[in-house]
């Protein structure tokens, strides 16, 4: 198993989307494929893709066992997730507010195709900003506590971010991320949470309190989340989420592309949508209907930025595994990480924030005193 340029670099992409037949893989290639899939959080999804093509049952014994275990792990997690959501619903029963499930939690609760093979490390909720306090209190009563002790970090979150510090359940250790919108208010791509909540749909018609983003917002959230977060460990996974959402909604929502483009313009999320669609088509295949191609092309930022971002994202979206290295990945990830911070906060806020964080790292005993007033 050699790292560096070799025939196995794009192995995950080739097998999952490039049409390469898994039946012809050597055991060494399987080892690299599984390593790439594991680092991209794609094991269970790879397993189900192979199963659909009848390549899982004929795989060698050990890769087959490994992939089967990955599918079992996800299935088990989904069972526990649904139970956990029930606990949260019970905790928030008397809070007079709609509550949205976001991302993976929504996919699983709503039974969307994007739920297939998807793991998640926490549960994302969204409510109106004026309801955050009440929801937090109700969750506190049910056992979810904020782990963030530092006063500065608490203020950073509540003043500038789109979410409060994570809440961890005192016994079960499950984590809730409570949002009031999907991007930081200080961000270049700030989105008004009220618009999203107004357009939201109930997950189950019988329970109007528990909701999810409307389809176009779900797709846009997936796009903007991927590029603003700065961490690309699950980049490929998130891109696949978006692709599966797209393919599903194109069938279930009449006029979906028109609505998507209009909503992207309304929420000023054209650039993230452009980047996401570019890489979806580069990796997974044609998705944009010819009639909308011109409109999609118009989403793009000016040429230098478009080319640079395409170059960076192509590298950052590769599985973070030695066998997938073709050069430039670390540089690209670093650049995009920096960019995500720059996107999130304008310079006049970002510089003092970074100075403060560096100070806290060097002088941990001063953590509770603000240095920059």
């Amino acid at each position: 198993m050699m790292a560096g340029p070799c025939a196995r670099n794009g192995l995950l992409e080739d097998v999952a989307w490039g049409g390469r037949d898994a039946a012809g893989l050597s055991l060494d290639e399987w080892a690299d494929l599984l390593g790439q899939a594991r680092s991209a959080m794609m094991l269970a999804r790879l397993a189900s893709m192979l199963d659909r093509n009848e390549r899982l049952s004929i795989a060698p014994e050990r890769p087959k066992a490994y992939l089967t275990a990955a599918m079992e792990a996800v299935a088990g997690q989904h069972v526990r997730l649904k139970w956990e959501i029930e606990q949260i619903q019970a905790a928030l029963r008397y809070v007079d507010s709609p509550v949205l499930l976001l991302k993976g939690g929504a996919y699983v609760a709503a039974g969307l195709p994007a739920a297939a093979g998807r793991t998640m490390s926490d549960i994302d909720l969204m409510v109106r900003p004026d309801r955050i306090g009440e929801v937090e209190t109700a969750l506190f009563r049910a056992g979810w506590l904020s782990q963030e002790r530092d006063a500065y970090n608490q203020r950073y979150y509540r003043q500038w971010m789109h979410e409060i510090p994570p809440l961890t359940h005192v016994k079960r250790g499950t984590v809730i991320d409570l949002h009031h919108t999907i991007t930081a208010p200080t961000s270049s791509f700030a989105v008004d949470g009220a618009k999203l909540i107004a357009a939201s749909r109930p997950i189950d018609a019988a329970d109007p309190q528990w909701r999810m983003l409307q389809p176009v917002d779900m797709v846009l959230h997936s796009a903007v989340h991927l590029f603003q977060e700065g961490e690309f460990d699950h980049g490929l996974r998130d891109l696949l989420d978006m692709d599966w959402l797209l393919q599903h909604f194109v069938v279930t929502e009449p006029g979906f592309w028109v609505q998507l483009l209009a909503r992207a313009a309304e929420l000023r999320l054209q650039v993230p949508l452009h980047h996401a669609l570019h890489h979806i088509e580069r990796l997974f295949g044609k998705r944009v209907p010819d009639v909308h191609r011109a409109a999609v092309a118009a989403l793009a930022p000016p040429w230098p930025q478009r080319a640079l971002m395409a170059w960076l994202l192509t590298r950052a979206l590769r599985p973070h595994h030695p066998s997938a290295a073709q050069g430039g990945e670390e540089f690209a990830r670093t650049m995009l990480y920096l960019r995500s911070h720059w996107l999130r906060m304008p310079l006049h806020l970002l510089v003092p924030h970074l100075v403060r964080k560096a100070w806290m790292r060097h002088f941990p005993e001063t953590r509770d005193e603000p240095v920059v007033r």
Partner: protein
Amino acid sequence: MPVEHAFPLLEWSMNWCVAMHAHQYLLLHSAVIERNGQAVVMPAPPGSGKSTLCAGLIHAGWRLVSDEMALLDRAQVGTVWPLCRPVSLKNASIDVLRARQPEARFNSESINTNKGRVSHMRVDPSHVARMDEPAQVRWVVFPRWTPGAPAALRRRSRADSMVELAHNAFNYGHLGAAGFEQLVDVVGRCDCYDFTYSSLDEAVDVFDRLPQVLT
């Protein structure tokens, strides 16, 4: 980290890899020995004397299946697969085995690891040669070394034994309901005992008579 701890750390890392990934088995933290195709599963928390007992018994006619982890086949319930590796011994056990089996080979000790002194005892090549040969579980024995105690087996209820085995299962949570069903099936095929002992010679005698113990 001192280079002298490399070997124990390698062993613990390998155990971790199996515990985290080998979910085609129900994995129990236990020693397993075999004779005539029938296996004894010996689960025990660290410090109960399981490894010492295991190391003693594999020089008295029992084959080493594993000194650390029982790999219980999920498809063919009742079948246990070998994880045949050098037997890990700690602290006083090392001295006991060196004295008892002077012909046995040990690697150099690692001292001051977080489990104390650690050494590994080489396994007889005839056991290693059979490392692809599974066995059928027949007994579950919970050992406890107790100073001065005569070697004695005491029946333990299957229900109680099953609960204890679940506590000793690495991937019980992952397997969910399937793990429960499998454990019920495994325990149903076994006679289960608590075993106290202080002398390895006495222990060997008791184990020799296991097939004759009336159930």
